[in-house]
């Protein structure tokens, strides 16, 4: 079980790194997917090793997948919008939060 959790932790860290450093929004979204997957691995692992009966973990993993899909859809729609408006999707440009 430790190995699975360790795998998830590493995957999560890598995803985190991607989120923090990617310049391309699509890259950030992809890294986010990695983090979601890390969480999912944890869910399924706990489902297998901890829960005595039932499939709660898997059900939750399923929910996470659905949420991730929704997130990707909306995220990419925003990406397209940003791309059309700024002619670029680098995060450096989108610093409206500064003002």
């Amino acid at each position, binding site marked *: 079980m430790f190995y699975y959790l360790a795998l998830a932790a590493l995957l999560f860290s890598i995803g985190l790194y991607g989120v923090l450093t990617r310049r391309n929004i699509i890259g950030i979204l992809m890294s986010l997917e990695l983090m979601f997957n890390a969480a999912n691995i944890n869910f399924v692992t706990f489902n297998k090793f901890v829960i005595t009966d039932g499939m709660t973990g898997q059900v939750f993993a399923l929910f996470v997948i659905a949420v991730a899909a929704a997130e990707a859809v909306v995220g990419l729609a925003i990406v397209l*919008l940003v791309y*059309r*408006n700024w*002619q670029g999707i680098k995060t450096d440009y989108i610093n409206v939060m500064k003002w």
Partner: protein
Amino acid sequence: MGELKTQEFIVNVGPHHPSTHGVCRLMLTLDGEKVVKIVPFIGYLHRAIEKICENRTYAQCIPLFDRFEYVTSMSCNYIFAAAAEKLAAIEVPERAEYLRVIMLELNRIASHLIFYGVTAMDIGALTPFLYGLRERELIIDLFEMTCGQRLTYNYIRVGGVSKDIPEQFIPDCRKAIKIIRRKLVDYEGLLNENPIWLKRNVGVGYLPADLAIAYGVSGPVLRASGVKYDLRKDDPYSIYDRFDFEVACRPNGDCYDRYLVRLDEIKQSLRIIEQALDGLPEGPIKAKVSPNFKPPAGEVYTRIENSRGEMGVYLQSDGGKKPLRVKARGGSYNQLQVLPYFGTGGLVADLVAIFASLDVIMPEVDR
């Protein structure tokens, strides 16, 4: 959201693209799949036919004109011969005129059959192409029987035709007419009410009549826009005024109408051929014309209704045995010119359908 900018995208269609019917190059500016701008580039098939003609005698020009528009080379033969006859005031025998009409109309049917197959193929249905060519084969066989050629006939000469038709011609021709009549029902059944065909064609590529007239578009494309203009009726040449036929005309000006007009024309041509076969007189087939005849100095323009619109030849003579200046006009050229003005706004697939429905043939454009 305000103004959104989209990235435009330039694609070269051709010169070796399957749906350009030869070697035409269209530079498309695309917005996604939508066509924003069309720029046609021509000249890939330029052979300088007009210039070469200036160094040939009139009789020698006719084989060159075979290659002017090779899908209907009978018409090309005829148009030059008619111009030369007009210039030199040569009387053509009755039987020759009848034979010419039969050949012209057969060739028109052959051309429209190719159109039928090619259009269907451009829209994705592969089978009609072979159907169209199968019936065209009957006509080509007739030509072969008459003049020994299957594509470039060199049959119609100055002052008449080169050979008389063989005995087998008339029964074979009648049989072919019968078969084509029967097969036309098949064609219509295959496509006319096919929902996908309708979806792809109806309302696509609307060419308004005024734009068509402004750009000098002629032939089936013009008639599909609701202009009932056919040189066979409006400016009768040869002996067309003797035959009873209707001018096919449709009002909507979209791809579907252009397709229907051509099918209608096939039917009308069949009628003309039947009448011509019935009234075919006996007699000579060629007036006596010297091979090196010298027409008097002057200029002349003749025009006929080809399957792709008005085809004309302008001849200028200085009294020598060679023409001083030859200028040919083909319908395809004008149809290609108007394409950028009404072909934009649709999708790429629409453009292919429109291009197919115009039935442009590149050698006629480039000469």
